[in-house]
């Protein structure tokens, strides 16, 4: 058992994946000599060489497009998008090619590509450095989408994503990169595409993923002081969704709140609300409520605390759910 930050856990997970499979190639801007702007790939180029940890030209479509070609040649590219808001130049390749080539070729051309994206706000950054674009990718058939929230999931999840035979968009909670947790590197990981109940409770089921899991757990602590018992589920996988544990939970609690940083309109919460309503209709005591970003461009950093869901906004939604 080791205590690791999420960032270091990702670094060790990438190292392990590269040791296990010589076909794993990391590609991205500033990931080699510099070790990435968040140092997630620190030291890897030194140990694995420039052919396996590629400092690419500054061209995101190029990163994803050449990754497709490398995958066709039997490689397993792991692409780093430096910041969430910079994924869009690569969006065409991801949506029209990465997501569709397996189906287009009827399985003849697998696309085992991992797209690592540090996402979310809370770091006081300038425009395009704090976004949550996960719904775009979850909406695209042919992609799998996950978001990790703990060092253990970061360590194991990145290895599982790399080993997966399909393209995986791997969201990393950038503002939690420095948070520590226990990682049992000899243990057996949970499946990548599964949700997890991270705190038991009876009154309201709170769903979150990525950076919002910690916020949801803080809300649960605060609610407990007021005698309210929140069950918190870390969704972990956004596409496919694994909602059976959620349905089970909601059938007990009768109330469900979904939390994410992304704007609420047509976000993951909308899909989850629809499904929970369909599956738990007769158990619901209140409509499924969503807590998320507003339908505004991500604001300048002096306003981001107003934009981002926090403990109080989660508790406010819990109150409203209880008040129905």
């Amino acid at each position: 058992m080791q205590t690791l930050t999420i960032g270091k856990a990702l670094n060790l997970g990438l190292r392990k994946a590269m040791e296990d499979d010589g076909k794993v190639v990391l590609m991205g801007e500033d990931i080699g000599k510099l070790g990435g702007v968040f140092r997630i790939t620190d030291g890897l180029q030194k140990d694995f060489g420039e052919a396996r940890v590629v400092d690419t030209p500054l061209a995101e479509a190029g990163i994803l497009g050449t990754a497709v070609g490398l995958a066709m040649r039997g490689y397993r590219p792991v692409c780093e998008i430096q910041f969430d808001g910079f994924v869009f130049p690569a969006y065409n390749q991801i949506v029209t090619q990465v997501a569709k080539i397996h189906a287009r070729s009827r399985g003849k051309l697998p696309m085992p590509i991992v797209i690592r994206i540090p996402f979310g706000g809370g770091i006081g950054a300038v425009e395009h450095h704090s976004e949550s674009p996960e719904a775009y990718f979850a909406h695209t058939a042919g992609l799998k989408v996950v978001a990790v929230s703990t060092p253990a999931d970061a360590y194991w999840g990145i290895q599982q994503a790399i080993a997966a035979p399909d393209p995986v968009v791997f969201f990393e909670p950038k503002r939690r990169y420095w948070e520590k947790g226990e990682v049992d590197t000899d243990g057996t990981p949970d499946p990548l595409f599964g949700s997890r109940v991270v705190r038991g409770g009876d009154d309201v089921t709170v769903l979150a993923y990525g950076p919002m899991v910690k916020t949801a757990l803080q809300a649960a602590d605060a609610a407990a002081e007021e005698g309210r018992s929140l069950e918190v589920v870390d969704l972990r996988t956004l596409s496919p969704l694994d909602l059976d544990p959620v349905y089970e939970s909601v059938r007990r609690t009768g109330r469900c709140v979904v939390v994410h940083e992304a704007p609420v309109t047509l976000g993951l919460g909308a899909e989850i609300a629809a499904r929970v309503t369909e599956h738990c209709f007769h158990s619901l005591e209140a409509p499924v409520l969503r807590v998320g970003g507003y339908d505004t461009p991500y604001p300048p950093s002096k306003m981001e605390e107003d934009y981002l869901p926090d403990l109080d906004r989660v508790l406010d939604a819990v109150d409203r759910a209880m008040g129905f």
Partner: protein
Amino acid sequence: MTALQQKTTEVVDPVPGAGAPHLPDQPDLVQLLTPEGERVEHPDYRLDISDDELRGLYRDLALVRRWDAEATALQRQGELGIWASLLGQEAAQVGAGRALVDGDMAFPTYREHGVAWTRGVDPLHVMSLFRGVDQGGWDPVARSFNLYTVVIGAQTLHATGYAMGLQRDGAENAALAFLGDGATSQGEVNEAMIWAATFAAPVVFFCQNNQYAISVPIERQSRVPLYQRAAGFGFPGVRVDGNDVLAVLAVTRAALAAAREGSGPTFIEAFTYRMGAHTTSDDPTRYRLAGELEEWKLRDPIARLKAHLSRTGIAGPEFFAAVDVEGDELAARIRKGTLEMPDPAGTEMFDHVFAEQTPELAQQRAEFVEYHASFEGN
């Protein structure tokens, strides 16, 4: 005429040589066979080719054109949803395709039926795409011919990445990326050329400049001849007569050889003309003059090889008649195969989205089956 327009005309002749079948204003144009079928030499591109190979190239060109004509007819009869004709571009495609060797990988657009032919792809596996049965029925790995890519230029990056894989594998092979004149305006194509240059990737960019991106002429894409763009990326650019199968073969062979030897990419501009419409949905009379087509007919890629073979006695009437018969047989096979092509089962759309099916999709598939089963027996 304004000063700006005058300058544009000086820099780029919209159709260099238009009105003159010999394209005389292009000193850099590599040509080994004149439009009249006269064999000429080029100091940089020698081509040692046997009579059998010459007859083989003619056969390729003629059969591909016959296939194309049959496909156009089938579309007109409602048997294909659409067809992208290669009429006029046979030499560019066959010449490039025949330059490939085992282990090389080609990355086509959606018009490279001639290259598909040279790679041994069954024409019916192309027809199935345009009929709407699948997205291309051939095995891209077995045929070393990627599936058609419809998003303009996206495949140039795939070819470049594949070439980087060849490099890592120590394979003495190259990737051949096809693109059109319009594609050179795409950001991804420019990124591909930057990557290829930066990593000295063994990839050749083969641009068929057929003068039009649907309706938009080349001067809306570029103020310099396309082959000159390569210099800005740091690798050689060559303009070849795209209607001269021998020159295309020689130039592409040389570029692929250089790539395989580690000399990095080459950009080839095959100067040609789309004699038909962009696709069967298009009407070229709205944007180009009939006279232009007439001029290009004088540079027809098949007529010139036929003239050469006849004049030199390498092939005679019997050979040409036999190829015609073979073409008609091929067309009949394509027609029959297309008409008899079974429609796919609706469940197929669920089956290859992922290598590892998700529970969600498996459930949607089950619901689809159940829904359709509910009508049976009613």
